[in-house]
């Protein structure tokens, strides 16, 4: 069940209506847990058992680690990483199409299970829960609270990855009168608009980046599509995160903001404080800092950056392209690190714009490894960006449409904020027009890009 389906609309409205009934106030957490299980099991009921194993297992290790952190915390983390590794990386070693993979039937069944949607996200929630709560030495939370934190349906499939120490204190009775309706509506409308109008329409154009279609593209169109994909992946993931935040607010939970205009970053380190913020924060807190961060000298810092970004790449998928994407981002962070102080001291507008352009260009080029997880295809696409096209029947691109579909991302990043001043009265009308436009001009239905992770 995706956020853009009518089934989800009915589901969310029903849960919302029941959630604030006075008679059910004592069961709000349980209601959200049941609703989240329904949401998750709607498409893949066979994977509900796995979700239950992940949550019960994590809860057990949490209780044990609260008694003896040193002994049980590593076991709990290893348990979750093993789950992630098994489901995410098994395809590197097996062919699921084979009639029988191993002689042991239960293992054969497990090996043939599809990649559970959202596993990368809920495993990170589990680890955050284990680390944060055992660090605080708090009393063990209720099982329902743990369930809710891990499987809360707005964030279950693609985040934002919420830290336990931020989410758990929010678990308390919620009241209808406390709902910030306008804020929730703005997040939800902006999210749907970016997904339906921007991302889904741009997806029609960037579908030509796939192999072998990209061979029909002219050289300049290959460049154009790289930038369009940059806008698309942002609009898609920002859209999802915005809807999740808006839905969270409707149920009384404030989820972390996941994006902060990433394409205006003037350095790669700044980019990672603006793009998929919840993942960057998670990696910094639970991987970079424990590895030693920047506390053990220059070379160790560089190594830590490369390890974190390489693993961050592999977190997205088991493939050479994802690993390379992460490592190249790591390399860019390493290369810019000694220059950052000097670059920051040159403070004039043109230079800042030039830095923004360089960062945007590099980040966009690296998205090619995301769009084309097959490494050979990605390299083929890149090579074609630097050689003249000879195809006698090139694909025609509509530059005017590309501009109109990309415009919302551009306007947002240009920092156009008319509604903070005298035009504040027009804000509801703009959001209303966006709602109409996303209905009228929605592109063909496609999954959220981050669902695959």
């Amino acid at each position, binding site marked *: 069940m995706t956020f853009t389906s009518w089934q989800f609309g009915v589901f969310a409205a029903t849960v919302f209506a029941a959630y604030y009934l006075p008679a059910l106030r004592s069961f709000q957490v349980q209601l959200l847990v049941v609703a989240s299980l329904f949401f998750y099991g709607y498409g893949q009921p066979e994977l509900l058992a796995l979700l239950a194993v992940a949550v019960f297992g994590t809860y057990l290790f949490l209780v044990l680690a609260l008694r003896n952190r040193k002994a049980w915390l590593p076991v709990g983390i290893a348990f979750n990483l093993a789950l992630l590794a098994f489901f995410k990386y098994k395809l590197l070693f097996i062919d699921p199409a084979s009639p029988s993979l191993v002689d042991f039937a239960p293992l054969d069944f497990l090996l043939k299970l599809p990649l559970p949607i959202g596993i990368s996200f809920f495993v990170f929630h589990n680890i955050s829960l284990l680390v944060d709560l055992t660090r605080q030495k708090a009393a063990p939370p209720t099982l329902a609270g743990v369930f809710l934190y891990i499987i809360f349906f707005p964030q279950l499939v693609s985040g934002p990855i919420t830290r336990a120490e931020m989410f758990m204190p929010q678990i308390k009775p919620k009241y209808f009168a406390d709902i910030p309706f306008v804020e929730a509506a703005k997040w939800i409308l902006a999210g749907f608009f970016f997904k339906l109008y921007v991302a889904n329409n741009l997806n029609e154009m960037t579908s030509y980046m796939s192999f072998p279609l990209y061979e029909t593209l002219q050289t300049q169109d290959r460049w154009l599509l790289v930038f369009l994909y940059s806008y698309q992946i942002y609009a898609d993931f920002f859209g999802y995160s915005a809807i999740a935040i808006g839905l969270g607010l409707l149920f009384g939970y404030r989820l972390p903001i996941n994006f902060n205009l990433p394409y205006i970053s003037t350095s790669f380190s700044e980019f990672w404080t603006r793009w998929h913020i919840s993942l960057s924060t998670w990696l910094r807190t639970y991987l970079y800092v424990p590895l030693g961060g920047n506390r053990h000298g220059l070379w160790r810092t560089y190594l830590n950056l490369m390890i974190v970004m390489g693993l961050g790449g592999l977190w997205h998928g088991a493939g050479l392209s994802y690993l390379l994407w992460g490592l190249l981002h790591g390399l860019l962070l390493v290369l810019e690190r000694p220059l950052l102080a000097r670059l920051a001291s040159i403070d004039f507008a043109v230079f800042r714009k030039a830095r923004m352009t360089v960062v945007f260009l590099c980040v966009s080029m690296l998205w090619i490894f995301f769009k084309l997880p097959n490494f050979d295809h990605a390299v083929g696409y890149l090579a074609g960006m630097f050689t003249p096209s000879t195809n006698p*029947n090139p694909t025609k691109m509509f530059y005017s449409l590309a501009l109109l579909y990309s415009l919302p991302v551009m306007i947002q990043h240009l920092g156009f904020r008319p509604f903070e001043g005298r035009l504040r009265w027009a804000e509801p009308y703009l959001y209303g027009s966006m*709602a109409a436009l996303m*209905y*009228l*001009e929605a592109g063909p239905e496609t999954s959220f890009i981050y669902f695959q992770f």
Partner: protein
Amino acid sequence: MSAVRWLIKCGAAAAIVLIACGLATVRFGSGLQVPATTTRDGTLNALSRYLREPVPNVVLVGSSITFRLKEEYFTTRGLRNLALGGGSPVTGLEIVANQPRLPAAILVEANVLARPPDAALVERYSRGATELLFFRPVRAAVAAYEQRLRPPLTHEQVALDLRRLVGQPPSDFDNRIYVDRAQQQFNAEDPTYVAQLNAKRIEELIRIVEQRGARVFLFELPYAEPIEGSRSAAATREIIHAAFPEPNRWLSIEVNRSELRWADGVHLDERSAVIVAGAMERALASARTVK
């Protein structure tokens, strides 16, 4: 501003935009609405246009191979190319057959029969009304801009350019890598089952439309040599010729093959498409004289 007032204003703005676009559709129709950014868009455009405009004299139905034969390449007036990129010729033939009025001649491509007809498209375009409920302002604006920039051409407008193009030597584009890839694909697929179903359905549809006075001719567009000999092409040819053995059912496209080039071994390049379009017209003129 209270939340309720904000939400009411927001809802009212959405409703006003939707009503305005609904009224615009009633006033202007939806003819301008979808620039073809993808194959699917192109298909919907072609079908909508077929239903919207007067019934043509001759219609071509086929796949992306026939799609390359642009209407302005033909001197025949009232010729419409309803070939659907990525689709089956049977889809177009079904839709044409389901219309209340038929063209005088229907030309059916017999190259690609391995794809089943698109039932959703057939259903949608056989109902007649395909107008959208709402005007889509962004697409309409871009479509208007594109039409202004590149208005549809007639044969008369491009005749000189086409003659110049045909007068040039054939392209020397090195397509070996693409031909090899296409050959592998054509050798890997077995079209037998679907092609037999399609051939049977074409037979039924021909009987229906010919009872209503239209004439139907089949045609095969040339492939590059290695593709002609591939498993899929050979099997398709055998099935369709077994279903339609009569020579007068076929347009005999006679061209000097050494003049033809394919971007990928399957789809003709522009110059070759112009040459083949000319040969088809000659074949059609000759076939229509045979009763």
